């Protein structure tokens, strides 16, 4: 069990000092049944394709991760040193469960996997700065016929 109370005091203090802005809730979306849903992954692990631009400090940009990407082409340029990278280094699904999502599609649990997934830099000192690019991703996913997004931090 890992709670902030179990973490190094400096790390917990830093995490709990991050601002948590109130964001006006959206009208509730009634999702499709999973078996009819095409699903995308959105990660804040600072991941990107090897030949894409690494993230810079404070970046609110996103990187496109093609659905057919070979895991050998994925990199992580997240700035924070205070999270485990060894899980990602050993098995990328520990952070970005694309192979698990593909398996759920093959089993018919979900209808399909998005052609594109998206990555942001996490540990944002002001998460409201992600408003513009976050909304852009929402539009892009919708226009690509995606019904659900699985969001994962790092």
């Amino acid at each position: 069990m890992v709670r902030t109370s179990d973490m190094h005091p400096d790390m917990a203090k830093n995490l709990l000092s991050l601002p948590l802005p109130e964001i006006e809730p959206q009208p509730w979306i009634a999702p499709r049944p999973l078996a009819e849903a095409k699903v995308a992954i959105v990660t804040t692990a600072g991941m990107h394709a090897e030949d894409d631009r690494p993230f810079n400090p404070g970046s609110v940009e996103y990187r496109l991760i093609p659905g057919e990407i070979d895991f050998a082409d994925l990199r992580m340029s997240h700035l924070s040193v205070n999270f485990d990278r060894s899980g990602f280094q050993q098995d990328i699904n520990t952070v970005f469960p694309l192979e698990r999502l593909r398996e759920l599609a093959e089993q018919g649990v979900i209808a399909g996997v998005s052609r594109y997934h998206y990555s942001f830099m996490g540990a944002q000192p002001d998460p409201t700065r992600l408003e513009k690019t976050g909304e852009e991703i929402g539009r892009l996913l919708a226009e690509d016929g995606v019904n659900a997004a699985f969001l994962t931090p790092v």
Partner: protein
Amino acid sequence: MCALSHYIERGSEGRVATTGVSLIREHAEGMKPPRSLWVPFPLGRPLGSPDQPDFQRDVLLSSLRLLESATETALVDYPNDAPTSGDDPWACAVALAPPEPADETEALRDQLVEEIRQLAPWHAESVKRRGRSTVGISGASLGQVEDLARLLADFATGAEPSDGEIDWNHPMPVRLKFASDDLRAFYHEAATAQPGANYPTDADLNDWLFNQTLLGTVLRQIVGRMRESEDRRVAGLVIGMIPAGFARAR
């Protein structure tokens, strides 16, 4: 992550529903994403543990099922801890005997390169087994890890950092951070190359790297120099070099 859930749903105009996992429960409580599964796993491992596909699939599915079960903002606790390899302590298969770091630049370069060469066969085994390496965010190729070591040795001894042959992704001083991350990735991948039932936690690997390798000692020297720097860009990088709890040798 929590904020993105709101923004993605808003931008989709009701066409994309979000769910996800949360590693910091307090953040999800405060920002109230529509659907979130809090998981009791270490930071950096939102799906639990590496090479545990059944467990990872269960975490993913538990979050996706919130799309069907939740009818209002939902924060649900995942009930299981991430799998571990048991109570036996992990020990790195590569027995390094790090020397006292040399004061002179060329000597320290040679010492670090020698340590990397001791790890290289294990790293090659890692690449063979996994079919990939995550080294490369600095711009260095796998064949250039020794140049990364030379850069760090230069800075640690106060010499002008050399460019080497690397097509760097970042200018100095940010380059130091990503060179350090790439070398740590090389060490971690080498140390975890040997398959076995007893796999390391993040704390195991940090303890090994920062207390049992020359690289760990050199990274602490670098942080010491960074703290003394009058260049605010350099001093600002300190926080990104060594994980909390490992700034001092054990």
